[in-house]
């Protein structure tokens, strides 16, 4: 059993020198590249988180960029006992026990954040509708979003 549902969250895109990004302590994020990180936080925590991250990064790298990328990404959570099996039907990415990977899910660029309870898949907002339709076609057993 697995369910796929839209998750509201805020996405913060951080660009800075590697040694600055190394200082980030945000619990949920993806280190996309040495000089880029994507941090995912609850919507209502976005403002303070952005300010905090900016303080941390700017202390080391005055050119650090901290941007609100929430609109660029759409997040889906895959939950349930068979969440990992469902993910295997969508992607060949090796899933860590916890942590994040950047790679193709259903063939399009995605960021995948794994926590104890769920697999969070971020795809670009432009491709989100196609992605959901295709995911549900690939895994018909996925339960619809509970409303």
């Amino acid at each position, binding site marked *: 059993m697995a369910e796929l549902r839209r998750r509201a969250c805020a996405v913060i895109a951080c660009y800075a020198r590697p040694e600055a990004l190394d200082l980030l302590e945000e619990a949920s994020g993806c280190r996309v590249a040495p000089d880029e990180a994507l941090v995912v936080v609850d919507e209502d925590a976005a403002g303070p988180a952005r300010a905090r991250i900016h303080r941390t990064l700017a202390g080391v790298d005055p050119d650090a960029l901290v941007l609100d990328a929430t609109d*660029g990404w759409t997040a889906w959570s895959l939950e349930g006992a068979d969440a990992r099996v469902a993910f295997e039907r969508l992607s060949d990415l090796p899933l860590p026990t916890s942590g994040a990977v950047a790679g193709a899910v259903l063939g399009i660029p995605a960021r995948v954040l794994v926590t104890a309870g769920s697999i969070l898949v971020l795809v670009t907002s432009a491709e989100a509708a196609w992605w959901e339709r295709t995911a549900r076609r690939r895994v018909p057993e996925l339960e619809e979003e509970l409303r």
Partner: protein
Amino acid sequence: MGHLDVDGRPVEVRPGDTIASAMFRAGVRTFTRSLKYHRRRGLYCLSGDCPNCLVTVDGVPGVRACETPAADGQRVRRKGGWPSVERDVLAVADHLHALLPVGFYSKTFIRPRWAWSLAERAIRSVTGVGRLPTTGPAPEAVPLRHRRVDVLVIGGGVAGLAAAAQAGASGARVLLVEEGRVGGRLAPGPVRDRVATLADEARRAGVEVAEGRTAVGIYEGPLVPVVGGDETLRVEPNRIVVATGAVEEHAVFVGNDLPGVWLGRGAARLAGVHGVRPAERAVVWARTAEALEHVRALREIGTEVVAVCGPAGLLTQLPDGVEPIVDGEVVRAVGRRAVEAVELRTPEGRRRIACDGLVVSLGRSPRDGLLRMAGDEPAVGAGEVVAPGCSLDEAEASGRRAAAGGRPEATSCGRARLGSDGIVCLCEDVGAADLDVAWAEGWRSVEILKRYTTATMGPCQGALCAPALAAFVEGRRRPTAAAAERPTARPPARPVPLAALAAGVDELPERRTGLHDRHLALGARLGRSGAWLRPFRYGDPDEEVRAVREAVGLLDVGTLGRFLIAGPHAGALVDRVLCCRTDDLAPGRSRYALALDPGGYVRDDGLLCALEDGRFLLTSTSGGADAMEAWLRDVADRGGLRVHVVNQTSWLGGVLVAGPQAPTLLARVVERGPDLGSLPPGAHAEAVVAGVACRALRTGFVGGYAVELHHRRAASVALWDALLVAGRDLGARAFGLDALDVLRLERGHPYLGQDTLPDDDPRKLGLGWAVALDKPAFVGRSALVRLWARPLERRLVGVRADGPLARGAPFELDGAVVGRLTSAARSRRLGAWIGLGWLRAVDGAFPERVRVAGVSAAVVPIPFEEAGGG
């Protein structure tokens, strides 16, 4: 257990039956007709290796009857005969080999040319192994699943199970795939007992045993596609153990494909596993000790084994009542519908023995296609696939060694037996005599013979015939020649249903802007433009054009590429990537910019906007955004520039507000910021429009007054709605790509990619003005210096005509083609057809008139003069 429906006849199913065993018990002897000559074919290998039992089951062609469990109500159709497999008038082909000689594709029906199309239709109607269903519901989609394991074991026999058990015991994640059921092909006896013990051991060691799953190839990675079990697996193992076993040698002699000729294991399987007598009276041709097991199994089921021919040592152990024929060899199987007798050559002379079964057990050839296609992937063989004919203990030990990663000791098998004639390739109906002909014609290597005769290229992929083909070549070569190689093994190693291949094939990814639902609500006709789904028209495109020229129109430009470029070397990057001047651009100013490749050719265009703090916003075409990001990063990376390239395309929405009433509309909705209505060309500004924070860019693509409002994607709907409401009395309306096409054509703006060729430098497009050649360095500069030293040979021009112009038509001058029309539209405003196209210089000058599909067109300067100001 119920009944099968075999060609309309009920066939009883008993527990444990496969479709093949049920049919054979019911008296079916001819299972298929052969591909070319319509020869009768019956059960032969019973291990999924030969094509003889391929039937259509419930509309699915190419099903191996011997591997498919029988179930009540299955509709089984035999293929290849007309009107039926039993009474096949097309079997006349078997007497007309001259019409279908080996290589007939290359040598018959060559002249007259029209003959081939008729012949092809005729040949296609009489050959083949089944018909693809073209009506009825589409088969259900097969799901795809990616698996990662430490060890993948292919084959659930003794060696495979031993390998899996051993690897599992050491803590590895092990997946074992078996195409049938574990032990399912084995009659009661020591082999089956050993398999059962090892299967228990494997399961206790945590091995995942997947039955009914077939590995069909080994690719680099390694990557192993596995089909069956209603899903397609893409397995990525760290190591692979191939334990696919061996198949008994396919001997080539006259009549070797008659129903009633059996491979020993096939006959034993039918007798021992399914309790069905393969023959009443059988002759066994033996060269292995295993053949004695087959003799026992046959006698137990009540088959009279009349005689066994083979080497003297083997024949001393025959039971009473079986005549040993020492050193006897089969030269021919005789019979009309099935075997009626065999002819033997013995030291004492020729003999003929009446029988209805000939069981051949001469040795084994490894089923090693997967192993051979593995190349240097981490794959090892275990058991009979590397040591055909090895003992049970050897197979088990070999499996355990393979689990530890050891390379097995491969033993070579003897050369396959090849008579003067007989069928070499059962699938493709290639006989030994055909190979002789091909050899005589000069096709003298395994690979070339294979291509010319199509031997080994059928559904069985050479499982049986590859050794015979190699033996043929070896036999013909001079003794000094190297041993003949087997033909190259390629995926798929086993037949794969198309649905299994299609698993994981999705529609092309599709991008939507934040205004998608608004377009639908406005009744837009949406279509793909590159990866984006975009509105082409909402109603009459002419009205949409008129709105932009006379009132105000809104276009969704949320598809444009948008890049924020920041960091200490941001200025250096844009200066290097773009061929215009960038150092003089003050914050708030923008400039039309071309990105060239190192060859001086135009990659993309857009607007460069200078922001505060040395940052830039760069736009690109909708289709070019991904490539532009990669290009920016490439130039930065190779140049060692410290920049942040932020692709904001999917973060941002964009609305183009264009037309003479646009300033009025914007004045009504701008809440904070400068008066956008007086924003001059080459300027951009931040403003809050209808509550939405925007960056406004003055642009010129459609002509007249136009502003792009870029904003966060989630606010697109609010902004769009506010603009439409506030502009209602001004005649504001949404316009789509069809109208845009006319609007930009009137301005003479090319669509990059549609109106341009891959080797168009800016001058050819009339965009030389956008190049600052006096800038000391930018990508493509030295190429432009080189190119521009030469006269212009081709350029993009505007054409104007009274008659209709069709995009794609050639430009003609005095009957010669001098160019091509790349865009065309009827401009109501100009009262003429206008278009863009490329034109070649003729004798150093560009023609002033050309003919376009019979219409006379004037070559005119662009922008077309009468187009509105701006």
